[in-house]
């Protein structure tokens, strides 16, 4: 059973559709979780570790417990179930009992009458530590001499992919480049810090209101710590003031749950200050990538050898998956027959790293794209020509050795880049810098990103559609709207399938009681999976509408036609021959019948796994090319991005406004990664504290951004759509670095390319302005 809509008849798909949640957002009337207020509330706070690595000798909470206004003080002794969390391996203690392994580690929780009393109580908790030497360098961490941060050692995971004969290919190659690249510890910097409410309800159930990226998994992690049946816990995780992967892991949900069990039924609120969010929250994995790439004289790539180290900090979270995805994408969207790709995910005492938009691909894209640019330069080839020559096409082999049967838009995105105004007129753009001491350059780069969880991992979606009074529909998909606008996408898909106006669709997301499990909001998956889930539910709704109409008409269901959002009798009937959805609802209501249907979608998988690497490969990928124009100040080393052309292949575009929003937001976030952003941790201690010393792009740095969608329809996607949330921030990184090289002749292999780094490199190479 499926919904068939002829492409030319699409009414909503591909249009510029206003966000469903827009009016509430632009008026400030939307309630985020920490905007709620409850009578008789108490404040919760978390005691953090004092050291990046230490053994806990003693915890004494007696003074804090005796402090007036304190309601409870909890330690590891108060954890009823399993004292740990973590999406893949729950190796992060909820409340530490033997060791602290990073500054973000939680040691105790306090609930008090006011935030001030809670803060004072934290100071009264006595913790005796035996301070230990922190492990801060991943390459040192894997040596036998390093202290073992976890019983299994400091290598959380190792990924290895080998195809062909690398040694022979390097020996026979005409050109070889080898470089080492370093990338920063980017902070998600969502505008809404972590926070929420825990409430023990009168019926003994627990309600946790906390923004998150997978309410059902959050519920499971909470239940495991409480040793409760998850059914007794309701998690409400929508709306969210920004996620980007940073709310994929548990943030404060478990603290809220534990505290709520000790406040006598009073609602407890936690809302991190930015400084606490910086220390406690996960970050993007800093990588060291050493990459050796070889080509023939004609530009054909023949070999790639990669060794990548990712610093996951104190706990795993999704670190293993990040390294796996990095290796899967380390050869770019090209076919390289001989590869030897090795990645390590390593524990240190440098905070905690986890999911972040791009998920390991950002770090390796910088390496492969830079190496290709160097090869092109050595061979005197055009950078777009060499890429076009090496990309794989639909039905072809990837560098992982698997056949990519789904849509591949890389070549077309590169072709669009070659024909865009900025590229065609690049000499003109470069010729006129704003000041004589500034130099301009243009760069191009391309990348790709897997959609969904990959081979061997559970990946499914589900949606409900409920017919409401007046003939409206309520579409439920648990996958949260973290800002990208997937709720509007679900409404568009439903309106198209049910032939109604988008204003007649309401969407509910992120509530374990009112929606069914639809998997995470991550991995660029929610348009593809959630859209397909809505399309899986829609035929059941159509069947319900038609069969009810047939009953009212007193004719066979085959004689009922759904046309223009109404139900028509194809033969003469008693009374009126057309029914509205409102009529159907009224009839079902009067007969006390169910008006809700559900649909389920299993994400298709590639044919076989790559080696022993769970999650590898993916079946569907989104593709993206960026062209950028930069201007570098040779007196200061400061780089300004002036223009960006973003060319995404997300398959069929569902909401053009939403796609452009992703493309623009991704471009600016990629710009921040490349030029400004890094969370500095020295000897395990955070030097970055807030936005005073973590530099985010502002309005002032915003370039002119043009988006040119390449719609390479994917037949397994909803109306041909794939996903785009992550890849929109990836190739711009390498494109900016290449543009800096084009402008100044210096290659920056260590990001961010701060003015200091660029200036130093220019000085070393004698590229400074002399008037």
């Amino acid at each position, binding site marked *: 059973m499926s919904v068939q809509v002829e492409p030319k008849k699409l009414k909503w798909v591909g249009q510029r559709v206003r966000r469903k949640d*827009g*009016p509430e957002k632009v008026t400030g009337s939307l309630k*985020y979780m920490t905007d709620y207020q409850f009578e008789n509330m108490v404040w919760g706070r978390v005691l953090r570790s004092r050291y990046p690595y230490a053994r806990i000798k003693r915890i004494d909470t007696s003074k804090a417990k005796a402090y007036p206004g304190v309601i409870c003080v909890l330690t590891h002794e108060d954890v009823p179930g399993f004292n740990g969390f973590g999406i893949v391996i729950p190796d992060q203690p909820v409340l530490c009992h033997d060791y602290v392994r990073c500054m973000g580690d939680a040691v105790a929780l306090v609930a008090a009458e006011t935030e001030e009393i809670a803060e004072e109580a934290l100071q009264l908790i006595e913790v005796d530590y035996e301070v230990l030497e922190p492990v801060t360098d991943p390459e040192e961490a894997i040596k036998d001499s390093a202290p073992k941060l976890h019983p299994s050692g400091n290598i959380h995971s190792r990924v290895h992919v080998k195809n062909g004969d690398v040694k022979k290919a390097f020996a026979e190659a005409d050109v070889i480049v080898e470089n080492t690249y370093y990338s920063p510890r980017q902070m998600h910097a969502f*505008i809404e810090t972590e926070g929420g409410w825990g409430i023990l309800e009168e019926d003994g159930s627990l309600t946790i209101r906390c923004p998150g990226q997978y309410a059902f998994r959050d519920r499971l992690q909470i239940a495991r710590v409480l040793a409760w049946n998850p059914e007794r816990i309701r998690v409400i995780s929508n709306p969210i*003031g920004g996620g980007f992967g940073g709310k994929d892991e548990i943030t404060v949900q478990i603290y809220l749950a534990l505290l709520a069990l000790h406040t006598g039924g009073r609602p407890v609120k936690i809302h991190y*200050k930015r400084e606490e969010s910086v220390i406690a929250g996960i970050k993007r994995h800093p990588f060291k990538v050493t990459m050796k790439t070889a080509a023939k004289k004609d530009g054909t790539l023949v070999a790639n050898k990669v060794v990548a180290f990712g610093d996951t900090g104190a706990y795993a979270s999704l670190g293993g998956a990040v390294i796996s995805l990095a290796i899967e994408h380390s050869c770019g969207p090209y076919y390289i027959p001989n590869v030897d790709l090795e990645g390590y995910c390593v524990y240190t005492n440098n905070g905690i790293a986890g999911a972040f938009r791009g998920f390991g691909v950002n770090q390796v894209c910088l390496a492969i794209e830079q190496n290709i640019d160097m090869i092109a330069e050595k061979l005197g080839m055009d950078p777009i020509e060499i890429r076009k020559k090496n990309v794989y096409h639909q039905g072809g082999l990837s560098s992982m050795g698997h056949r990519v049967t789904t849509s591949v838009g890389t070549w077309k995105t590169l072709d669009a880049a070659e024909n865009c105004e900025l590229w065609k007129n690049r000499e003109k753009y470069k010729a006129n810098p704003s000041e004589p001491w500034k130099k301009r350059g243009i760069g191009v780069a391309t990348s790709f990103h897997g959609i969904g969880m990959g081979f061997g991992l559970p990946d499914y979606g589900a949606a409900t559609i409920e017919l409401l009074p007046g003939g409206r529909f309520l579409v439920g998909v648990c996958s949260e709207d973290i800002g990208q606008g997937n709720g509007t996408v679900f409404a568009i898909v439903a309106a198209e399938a049910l032939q109604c106006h988008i204003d007649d669709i309401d969407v509910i997301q992120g509530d374990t009681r009112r929606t069914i499990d639809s998997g995470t909001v991550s991995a660029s998956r929610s348009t593809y999976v959630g859209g397909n889930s809505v399309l899986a539910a829609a035929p059941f709704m159509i069947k319900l509408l038609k069969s009810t109409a047939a009953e009212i008409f007193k004719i066979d269901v085959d004689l009922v036609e759904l046309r223009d959002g109404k139900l028509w009798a194809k033969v003469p009937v008693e009374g009126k021959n057309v029914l509205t959805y409102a009529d159907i609802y009224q009839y079902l209501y009067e007969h006390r019948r169910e008006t809700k249907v559900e649909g389920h979608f299993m994400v298709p998988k590639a044919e076989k796994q790559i080696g022993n690497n769970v999650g590898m490969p993916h079946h569907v990928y989104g593709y993206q090319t960026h062209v950028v124009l930069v201007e570098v100040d040779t007196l200061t080393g400061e780089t300004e991005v002036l223009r960006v052309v973003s060319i995404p292949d997300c398959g069929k575009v569902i909401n053009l406004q939403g796609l*452009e929003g992703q493309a623009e937001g991704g471009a600016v976030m990629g710009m921040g990664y490349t030029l400004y952003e890094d969370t500095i941790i020295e000897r395990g201690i955070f030097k970055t504290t807030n936005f005073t010393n973590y530099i985010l792009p*502002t*309005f002032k740095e915003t370039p002119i951004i043009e988006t040119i969608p390449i719609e390479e329809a994917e037949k397994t996607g909803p109306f041909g759509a794939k996903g785009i949330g992550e890849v929109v921030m990836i190739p711009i990184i390498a494109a900016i670095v290449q543009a800096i090289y084009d402008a100044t002749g210096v290659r920056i292999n260590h990001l961010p390319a701060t003015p200091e780094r660029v200036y130093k490199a220019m000085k070393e190479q004698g590229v400074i302005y002399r008037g």
Partner: protein
Amino acid sequence: MNLKEISFTVNGQSVCVFTYPAKPLLDVLREELNLTGSKECCGKGECGSCSVILDGEVVCSCLVLVGQVEGKDIKTIEGIGDPDHLDPLQEAFLDCGATQCGYCTPGIIVAARAYLDRIQHIPTHEEIKDALAGNLCRCTGYTKIIQAVKKAAEQQFILR
């Protein structure tokens, strides 16, 4: 410190709160007046998420103590429009797709509204960027916000 009665005007209504004069205005707006459109993000005047208009000037309400606003006039996002009565600037945000997660949006609309009320011409992109340089957004890449402010300005200065 002692509790004190402090009177001021919010969105045209006189209010009187009995609170600590050293409490940030933002906390008073959110916790005591239930005006939660203004958000806390950095708590130190870096991000503009808590922007309100104080006697015609845009300020970060996290940096203003409530004791400082005795007798003053404050406008918050709630005073600019509501879903049934949108300000043209808010309409422009919807038309242009200038909000994503929406957490920074109230502060940006407050700052942009104050800016458009202050000027007498259609601003250039560069002028809009300067005017909003104190507001951070992590989702949108700013582009559609600039377009929305421009669009609202065009309506304000040409079409009225």
